[in-house]
């Protein structure tokens, strides 16, 4: 099986690569590429994302044909895709970090700054926090409710359809931190930096 981590030249993806390589069994190839043909022929895709919403969207658009190839993969062929952090946020229609920026528009919703109650809560939301399940998600197999995951972000994805939310995290409000919609998966936290439980989530995605 081929799992492709999309390298669209935005942010640091070495930790994502390391974690996938650490859990992958012998029959699984982890590819890291921006090559459209390789992306199209993959069985699963990981869309990482660090930095601002705008810089990630810009970087995706900079690679000619990439957005269409991803859309084909995820929406037409409906193969499993995991977005991590801004990778998840980009599923939205629009984001407001830096400037109002159009997202991929795969899941209706927006990405806004976490309400920090006038400075009562520090931003970025950095560190380990408990996730609370909202529904069963295939990537949470073997993970207990209220497990700790590692977060680093100031913005949150607010989907219109709340039924896509698979987990939230308590930080000033109930912040959406994981979604599952058919073949689309996303985590606001970083499974690649969330110790053994994070690796379990990655394993679950690979084994879908």
């Amino acid at each position, binding site marked *: 099986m081929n799992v492709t981590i999309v390298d669209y030249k935005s942010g640091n993806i070495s*930790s994502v690569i*390391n974690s996938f390589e*650490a859990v992958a069994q012998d029959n699984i190839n982890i590819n890291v590429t921006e090559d459209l043909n390789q992306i199209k022929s993959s069985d699963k895709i990981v869309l990482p994302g660090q930095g601002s919403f705008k810089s990630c969207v810009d970087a995706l658009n900079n690679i000619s044909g990439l957005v269409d190839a991803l859309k084909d993969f995820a929406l037409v062929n409906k193969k499993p895709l995991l977005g991590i952090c801004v990778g998840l946020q980009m599923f939205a229609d629009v984001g407001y970090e830096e400037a109002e920026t159009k997202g991929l528009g795969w899941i209706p919703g927006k990405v806004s700054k976490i309400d920090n109650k006038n400075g009562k809560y520090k931003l970025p939301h950095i*560190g380990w926090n*408990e996730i609370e399940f909202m529904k069963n998600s295939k990537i949470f197999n073997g993970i207990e409710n209220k497990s700790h995951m590692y977060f680093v972000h*100031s913005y949150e994805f607010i989907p219109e359809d709340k039924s896509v939310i698979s987990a939230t995290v308590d930080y000033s409000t109930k912040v959406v931190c994981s979604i599952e919609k058919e073949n689309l998966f996303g985590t606001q936290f970083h499974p690649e930096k969330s*110790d053994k439980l994070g690796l379990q989530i990655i394993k679950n995605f690979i084994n879908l």
Partner: protein
Amino acid sequence: MLKNRIIPCLDVKNGRVVKGINFVELKDAGDPVEQAKIYSDSGADEICFLDITASNENRDIIYDVVKETSKNCFVPLTVGGGVRSIEDINKLLNCGADKVSINTAAVQNPNLIKEASKKFGSQCIVVAIDAKKTLEHKWSVFTHGGRENTNIDAVEYARLSEKNGAGEILLTSMDKDGTQSGYDIDLTCQISKAINIPVIASGGVGNLEHLKDGIVKGGASAVLAASIFHFGTFSIKEVKEYLKSKNVSVRI
């Protein structure tokens, strides 16, 4: 609820740990890769490497260390020491560091923080402040490993760092560092109140109560320590169990 983080720090010189875990069962007490793994397996919330390599020729060694460490360490890894440019940051991140802490270069060139946080995201840019008390409730920022007084007010500088895009402040009290007499609570508290990004308290931990005070009295989001872990005085587990017993929320 967001947990308070416990961060062990390893001083690395020419690729070898000079202040790290001093346990007998270690195969190689000077191997940062092995030590980082032990810390992360025992529940450290993050790992910090401080590269104190003196000569530029040996600077590249840290890249290999980070590369090897990040293959086996699945909690965030912060690397600092001698970081001067966008290129240095880029190299460390590409080797697998999750955050880079910048000290002297951030004072000399505030644009570096602006540029770096824009390019790599605030989440991976930590501004490290070495502060020394000059007057009652006043601290000055020192650079070059604490050798040069910039005469910049530490609280003002923390505010400026936040404005320039730093994601966190790693705050070391030079007066307290190495004394084992506890963090400078006044300093930690002033800076923590002045800014809205997380503060990591550093310098002076000698016992468990000091860690608690850094969080409860100082308002730090994370506490960093080297010696107490290095000399095996306390394990990460002991620290966390103590803090939990004092109603300080930690990941266990």
